[in-house]
């Protein structure tokens, strides 16, 4: 367990160094303003973070966290119901499977027409991307619980609520967290995309704005900070997974 955590951190540190070295080499080799050196970018982040970037980071973080939380709150119960009650599954599964392969980004115009350019459509887009994966994963997690697991509780006369709290929730938690973690990558891309219009806050806006102003140093700073943000959330979910699911 401790070894695995150590390996993960070592892996992260190793990848970080490889990326930096590669980036540094390319920048040094080409020596053009559109690829500034890592050192210059990190210095720039330190210089402008509090004055210029913080508000954008906060706006993006808020959107993505709200998106994840709402997607979990909506998707997990739905998936559980589908996994546990055959009838609910029969009604909802075809709908989920039918809509799952639709590229959600293509729905952006519709969402914008219906909900405007503001926060609501950005949030809806993020939720749309994550929620299906969470629904399907929760459903499959519940379905994969062997019938014998319920037997002890059945013979004790456990109520339906107890079945959920004692078996279904803990048994499917690891899968749900993994699905969330995997969906996060797509969610950050969508976040970036939706922040390029209809707002003046968010890392997407910050990066595009720096690009338009031909301020490459700021543009790179924005990209690094956005990536770091994604990495931090990813790591947080990973940590809570190993903490909550240490029984595995």
């Amino acid at each position, binding site marked *: 367990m401790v070894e695995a955590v150590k390996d993960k951190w070592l892996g992260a540190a190793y990848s970080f160094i490889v990326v930096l070295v590669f980036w540094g080499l390319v920048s040094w080799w080409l020596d053009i303003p559109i690829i500034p050196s890592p050192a210059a970018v990190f210095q720039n982040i330190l210089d402008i973070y509090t004055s210029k970037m913080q508000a954008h980071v906060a706006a993006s973080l808020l959107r993505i966290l709200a998106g994840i939380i709402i997607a979990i709150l909506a998707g997990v119960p739905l998936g559980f119901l589908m996994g546990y009650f055959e009838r609910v599954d029969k009604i909802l599964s075809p709908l989920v499977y039918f809509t799952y392969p639709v590229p959600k980004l293509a729905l952006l115009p519709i969402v914008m027409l219906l909900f405007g350019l503001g926060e609501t459509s950005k949030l809806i887009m993020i939720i749309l991307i994550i929620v299906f994966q969470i629904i399907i994963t929760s459903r499959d997690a519940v379905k994969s619980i062997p019938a014998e697991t319920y*037997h*002890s*509780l059945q*013979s*004790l006369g456990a109520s339906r609520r107890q079945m959920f709290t004692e078996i279904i929730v803990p048994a499917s938690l690891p899968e749900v967290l993994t699905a969330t973690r995997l969906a996060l990558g797509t969610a950050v891309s969508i976040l970036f995309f939706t922040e390029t219009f209809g707002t003046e806050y968010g890392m997407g806006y910050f990066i595009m704005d720096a690009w338009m102003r031909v301020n490459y140093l700021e543009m790179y700073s924005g990209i690094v900070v956005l990536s770091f943000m994604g990495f931090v959330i990813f790591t947080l979910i990973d940590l809570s997974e190993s903490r909550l699911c240490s*029984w595995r």
Partner: protein
Amino acid sequence: MISVKELSVAYGENQQLTPALDKVTIEIDSGQIYTFIGPSGCGKSTFLYILAGILRDYQGIVTIDGKPVDPQKQRIGLILQNYGLLPWKNVYQNAILGAKIKDQPADEPYVRFIFQQLGIEDLLGRYPKELSGGQQQRVAIARAFILKPDLLLMDEPFSALDAITREEIQDLFLKIWKQHQVTTVFITHSVDEALYLGSKIVVFSPAPGKIIEVIDNPCFQLENLRARDEYYRMSKQLRKMLSEEWSKQ
């Protein structure tokens, strides 16, 4: 007392019903261990699941102390071959699960006493995956006794254990059982186990399961049983009977 009258169960869809139990009738006296022995697939586990309230689709009448089987009202302890522990709960949480579901605060001194008797008091913080089979089964036994059950149901609980661990746990089980004398239905396919643990031995036929005979076991609770002549004689007699009965079908 458990009373079973004309109990029949069939599996499958309407058109192709495979009978699992065929008009089983038996009265199980309180405070006894009944070992049920039968070949694989004879429906003895099905019988147990009906008593446990897990299987509800059957014909016939099954009552526990005059009332129909209802796990919400009766206290039924179930011990299964795969131990039935929840992997996300540690030993302590698994052991008090029964008491928790029944909405009763666990009787702490009694819980400690059971842990001690089963020798698992040092394992309380561990998860099932960190335990050996024998240890997991001890936890399952602890859970069943902590529940203070009216009825104890055991479905080949020791058959996945190695021979030495099995005999150890059989002795341990008997020791704790003697203090409580819970009515116990014990399913097994081992002649040795049926003789060693059962005050009565119920012989099942091959599928569809019928009761062939209920035998009073003279060997039950004799000191140093496995070394005795009675045990050897009884074992031989039982084996002979089983091979005759089971080959008839």
